[in-house]
C-alpha cells in the first residue's frame, strides 16, 4: 500500500467543506458572538446555551435529525425539492448545512470568550469618535480578538475535517461529492486496511500541523506587537 491508496478526491472534498464551513461560520458567528458578548439582555444566556447544544447531541443523532429535516418528508425538504429540483441530502450543500450547524458552537464559544475580554473603554473611545456598533466591532473588537478568531477558525476547520458521524448520515458517502477524508479513513479502518488508514491519518496530521502552526505563528507574531512588555 502506498500513497496511491490515499483517497485524494476525499481529501479535496474535506478541504472544500472545511473551508466553506469556516467561512460561513465566521459570517454567522462573529455577529452572534458580539451580540452575546455585549448585549445586556437577560435572555442572551438562553441563546448562548442553545448555541452550545449541537455539542451535546451525538453526531449521528444530530445527523439523523438533519436528514429528516432535509428529507422529502419535511416541508423544508419538499420546498427545496420543488424549487431547485434537487435533494439536499446526499449533496455537498446538504453536508455544508449540517457541518455549519454542527460546528456552530466551536466558532461561537471562543469568539465569545475573546470578545468579552476586550477592554470596554476602547469601545467607549470608539463610540465617542463617532463609530457605530458594527464599525467598532470591525475596527476594534476583531483586531484585538485575533487569538479568539484564530482559535475559532482552527477549531471549526479541524473539527469539520475530523467530523464523520454527521457527514456519514447526511452525505451518503458519495465519492467526489460527500465522501470526506474522515469517512474514507473510517472506511479503511472498517475494512481492516490499517495501512491506508494510517497513511491518510498521517497526511491529515501533517497537513493540520502545518495549517495550525501557520495560524498560531501568524496570531503570535501579531500579538507580540502589543504584548505586555
Amino acid at each position, binding site marked *: 500500500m502506498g500513497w496511491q491508496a490515499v483517497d485524494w478526491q476525499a481529501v479535496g472534498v474535506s478541504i472544500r467543506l472545511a473551508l466553506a464551513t469556516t467561512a460561513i461560520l465566521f459570517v454567522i458567528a462573529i455577529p452572534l458572538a458580539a451580540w452575546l458578548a455585549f448585549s445586556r439582555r437577560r435572555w442572551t444566556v438562553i441563546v448562548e446555551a442553545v448555541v452550545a447544544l449541537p455539542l451535546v447531541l451525538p453526531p449521528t443523532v444530530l445527523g439523523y435529525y438533519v436528514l429528516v429535516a432535509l428529507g422529502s418528508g419535511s416541508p423544508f425538504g419538499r420546498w427545496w425539492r420543488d424549487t431547485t429540483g434537487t435533494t439536499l441530502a446526499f449533496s455537498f450543500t446538504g453536508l455544508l448545512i449540517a457541518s455549519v450547524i454542527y460546528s456552530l458552537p466551536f466558532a461561537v464559544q471562543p469568539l465569545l470568550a475573546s470578545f468579552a475580554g476586550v*477592554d470596554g*473603554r*476602547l469601545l*467607549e*473611545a*470608539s*463610540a*465617542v*469618535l*463617532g*463609530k*457605530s456598533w458594527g464599525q467598532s466591532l470591525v*475596527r*476594534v473588537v476583531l*483586531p*484585538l480578538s485575533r487569538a479568539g478568531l484564530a482559535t475559532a477558525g482552527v477549531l471549526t476547520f479541524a473539527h469539520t475535517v475530523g467530523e464523520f458521524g454527521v457527514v456519514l448520515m447526511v452525505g451518503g458517502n458519495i465519492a467526489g461529492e460527500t465522501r470526506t477524508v474522515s469517512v474514507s479513513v473510517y472506511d479503511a479502518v472498517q475494512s481492516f486496511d490499517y495501512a491506508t488508514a494510517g497513511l491518510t491519518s498521517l497526511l491529515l496530521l501533517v497537513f493540520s500541523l502545518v495549517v495550525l502552526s501557520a495560524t498560531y505563528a501568524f496570531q503570535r507574531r501579531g500579538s507580540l*506587537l*502589543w*504584548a505586555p*512588555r
Partner: protein
Amino acid sequence: MGAAVSVGTASKALRLDIRHRRVRARLDLDLEHPGITVLFGPSGAGKTTIIRCLAGLDRISSGTITLGPTLWDDGGRTFVPARRRNVGYLFQDLALFPHLNVAENVGYGLKRMPRASRQAIIDDALRTAEVPGFQERIVAELSGGEAQRVALARAIAPRPDVLLLDEPLAGLDDPTRLRLRSELRRLILHAGIPALVVTHDRDEALALADQLVVLIDGAVHQTGPPAEVFDRPADAMVARVVGMDTISPARVVSVDRGTVRLRVGEASVVADLPSWRRHPLAAGEAVAVCLRGGDVGLRADPGSAAPPDTNSLPAVVTGIIEEASLIRVQVDAGFPLVCFLTRRELQALGLTGGSRVLVLVHRRSVHLAELAPQ
C-alpha cells in the same frame, strides 16, 4: 450631529441638570461662543462622572441633558448615543487603541476623505499636541507623557462640536505642560471648538479657563471667571481648593464704614467690607478669613510701624519650606498663617524657625468667605 437636529432656535446651549452617583449638579455650556469652561475640583468630586454623562458614556439617574432644543438624556427613555453627540473626549486613562499605531489612532475618528487630506489632518493634530513625527510609533512603546499627547491629538482631529478633556495635561513634565497649556488654549480658541476641561491643577485652571466651575463632593459650589473665583471664593471649601494658603474661622466683631473688624484665633483683623456678598454682615456672624500667601508681607523688625490700611500682626516663624520657585513661610500670628517670599526677600529678612516677625496684610487682601456652602 446625526439624530440631534436643532429645530426652531439657533441658540446652541448644552445644559446639564443631573443626579447621578454622588453628583447633583447643574451646568450650562454655550456652544455658540467658543471658549473654555474648566471643571475644577478635588479628586473624587465627580468631574469624570459629569463629562462621562455629557459624552453619553453613562446614563444619568435622573435630570436632563439637552443640546439646544434636543434632549440627549432624561434618565428615562430618551438617550442619544455617544456616537451621535459629536463630542471629542480625552479619557483620563487615555484608552488609546493598542492595535493601531499613532497615526491610525489619531485618524480613527475621521470621516471618509482623500488620503492626503487625512494625512494632513493627522500630521496637524500631532504637531499641535507636540508629538510630531510619532505617526508610525506603536502605542505600547510611548512614554506616559507621549501617550497623553497622542490621545489629545485623537480627540481634536475630528473637529467635534465640543471638546471634553479629562485632565488633559496631567502626567506631563513641567516645561511641556507649561508650553502645552498656552498651546492648548490657543488651539482650542483658534479651532473655535468650545471645550469643557476637567482639572484639579490650579495653574491649569487659571491659565485655561474663560469660565470656572468649582465642583466639590458632587455639587457645584461656585461658577464664574477664574480670577473672580480665585480671588473671591464663595466658601471655605472653595477657598481651600483654589489654594487660599490661609483659611481660618473668624467671628465678626463689628461692621463699620466700609470695614469689618474680626476676631481670628487670638488676633484681631480688619477687612474691607465685601461689596459683592449676597447678604450684609452682622456682628457675631461666623465667617472664614482667607489669605493668599503672596499677599502677606513680613517685616523682621516687630516694632516698626505699619503702612496705612494694613493689618500688622506680631508673629513667630514656625516653618520655612523651600519650593522650586518660592519659599513658603509658616507663622503663628494668633492663628496659623502662610506667607510666600522670594529667595531674594528671605535672604534680606534672614529668617529662621522661631524668628519673631511682623505680619503685614492689607485690608483689601483679607477675603471673607462663608464658613459652609450656601
